[in-house]
């Protein structure tokens, strides 16, 4: 099963390689990985998408926690959270299809960020399904290049105000 794991780490050189080394060294797979600084410049947040049965996911979370530079690990899957991904898509737009491309962009609330006589570059934000739907519609029109960010995710605030707590338990 696919899991979205949010990891707070020390913002230090070499931390990314400790994490990616852990995954490659132990045969875990990474589907996507996203890193950026948090409000506290000494801490970065990584959003990892990985796959595995319960035992493997438990190992991944424990092994991440074991790294000295990892401050907190949270498995968002199974909790209430919001996820987003962004794609930049360069799509060929001949005179016959220019209107069609713009219509698709409009329907999916995307934006055109670059225009040339024969192409549009589109910015699409959403969850994985939405991005996939846009891509499926654009493929027949001719996608020239595509770049995707991979997922970022954040837990939803509970209605009573508390934060969804992590599901990590060692015992």
């Amino acid at each position: 099963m696919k899991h979205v794991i949010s990891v707070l780490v020390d913002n230090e050189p070499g931390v990314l390689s400790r994490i990616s080394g852990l995954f490659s060294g132990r045969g875990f797979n990474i589907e996507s990985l996203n890193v950026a600084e948090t409000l506290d410049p000494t801490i970065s947040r990584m959003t990892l998408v990985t796959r595995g049965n319960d035992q493997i996911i438990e190992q991944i979370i424990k092994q991440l926690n074991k790294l000295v530079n990892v401050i907190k690990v949270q498995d968002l899957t199974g909790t209430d959270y919001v996820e987003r991904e962004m794609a930049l898509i360069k799509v060929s737009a001949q005179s016959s299809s220019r209107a069609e491309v713009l219509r698709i962009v409009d329907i999916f609330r995307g934006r055109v960020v670059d225009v040339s006589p024969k192409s549009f570059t589109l910015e699409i934000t959403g969850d994985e399904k939405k991005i996939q739907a846009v891509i499926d519609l654009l493929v027949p029109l001719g996608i020239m290049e595509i770049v995707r960010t991979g997922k970022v995710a954040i837990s939803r605030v509970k209605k009573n105000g508390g934060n969804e707590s992590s599901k990590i338990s060692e015992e």
Partner: protein
Amino acid sequence: MKKTGAEILLESLRQEGVEVIFGFPGGAVLNIYDALLKYAEEIRHILVRHEQGAVHAADGYARASGKVGVCLVTSGPGATNAVTGIATAYMDSVPLVVFSGQVPTMLIGNDAFQEADIVGITRPCTKHNFLVKDVNNLAITIKQAFYLARTGRPGPVLVDLPKDVIADTAEYNYPAKIKLRGYNPTYQGHPRQIKKAAKLIAKAQKPLIYAGGGVIIANAAKELTTLAQKYAIPVTTTLMGLGCFPGNHPLFLGMLGMHGTYQANMAVTNCDLLIAVGARFDDRVTGKVEKFSPYSQKIHIDIDPTSISKNVLVDIPIVGDAKNVLRALLKALEEEGPPPDSAKMHSEWLKQIDAWAKAAPLNYKNSSGIKPQFVIQKLNEILREMAGDNFIITTEVGQNQMWTAQFFTFTRPRSLLTSGGLGTMGYGFPAAIGAQVAFPDKIVVDIAGDGSFQMNIQELATAVQYKLPVKVAVLNNHCLGMVRQWQQLFCDGRYSHTIFELVPDFVKLAGAYGAVGMRATKPEEVEPVIRAALSTPQTVVMDFIVDREECVYPMVPAGAALTEMILL
């Protein structure tokens, strides 16, 4: 007053109570070696002959004493030579701090002379590692390194020191306390889990304790022995656990696993409750995982959460320090009401185990030549007679190691030092040197094979130079015995590159290094050689010419169930 990086390093080591460093100099650590002269009174430096020897020696020192072992090596090849030693310590959770020299910071990444990205290379085989880029961070990094090495599940930590950082100066201020926000080992077991465990133990009919090296590291041998004795629970240990429970105790079943005893493997397969303490269900222990201890509920006590349910799913995991958890468990068992008459309750079980023990005891067939097992039995006998409990055994890796585990009786924690996880040939001799440095008055014997001993034989010079009276017992079968055994059993006897066509004359070689060499070629010469060696106050190499085709039995083939043992 400002101090240089080199002085800060040595001051910090003094603060940490470091008495000895095992090392080898080089260009990148020139300044440190220069400063070391001023600290010669407080910090002893043992000059090894190869960096791998330095790390194994520091490892042996650490395992024997429980203190943190310290090494100092130069950049590039010095550091890469240390890697096998570091990985060995990592697999067996040995607290080490390894200082490596590095090229000056402005040359890092430049493919400079004797440059290696040792922080990158050792990332997967250290508990943590550091590159110090500013002399102002040096003291706190050293403090963190020692703290990480010795706390939680111990392990090796590498600190990489660029030459310019070592030459630079800063105010010296050794921090009294540090905090690492991502590092909080759990020492106390969860009370509810401990209570559940106590309930299971109280009602188990066929319980078994499976103890590993964690019991020794946590100094929990006493608590474990109390648990076993008080509730009449038989004990098997892993290779790393040997010595955490008295080997001559009636409840002791011997080691389990690939070369475990028949009764231990039968007991673990048939028990109804398995109490794993400080052990990690390694593949050499479990055999085929699906068939490992299929009828038991499992309690697993370990300080490292990643060890739990990694290979074998357990029913009651307890994360914590073995000593703390066992103490709490003993207390919980007392509170579980009047202790059941455990001896009576388990009498059927103990009888069954006894029957297994009698059905296939450890044994070997005698011949006209020297049997390696016989040498180990004799060593065991004579050492006990001459030194009581005051000895340390190290082993190399292979048949010598397994026969030692089977035929030597360990009654004290930290009396066996062996490379269990990584299985590093060449570990035993330098580790014996380190153990002898830690305990000059104990008799330290490395039980070796002719293959393994040659992997770090250069350390004979170290042993002789520092007058360390280490004894090496070479079980000389003129081959790589364990691989040869596998070839005999699994490759129809095709001995591909396992027979040495040339083995050096170890007696002459010992002499060349200034050590004493002795040889036994007949069974009746074994005892006199051992007695003479143990009475010689110098480094001694005993060369026992043993039967080549001897195999280690019982044996569970790799990947087979524990019950599929090949018996003698």
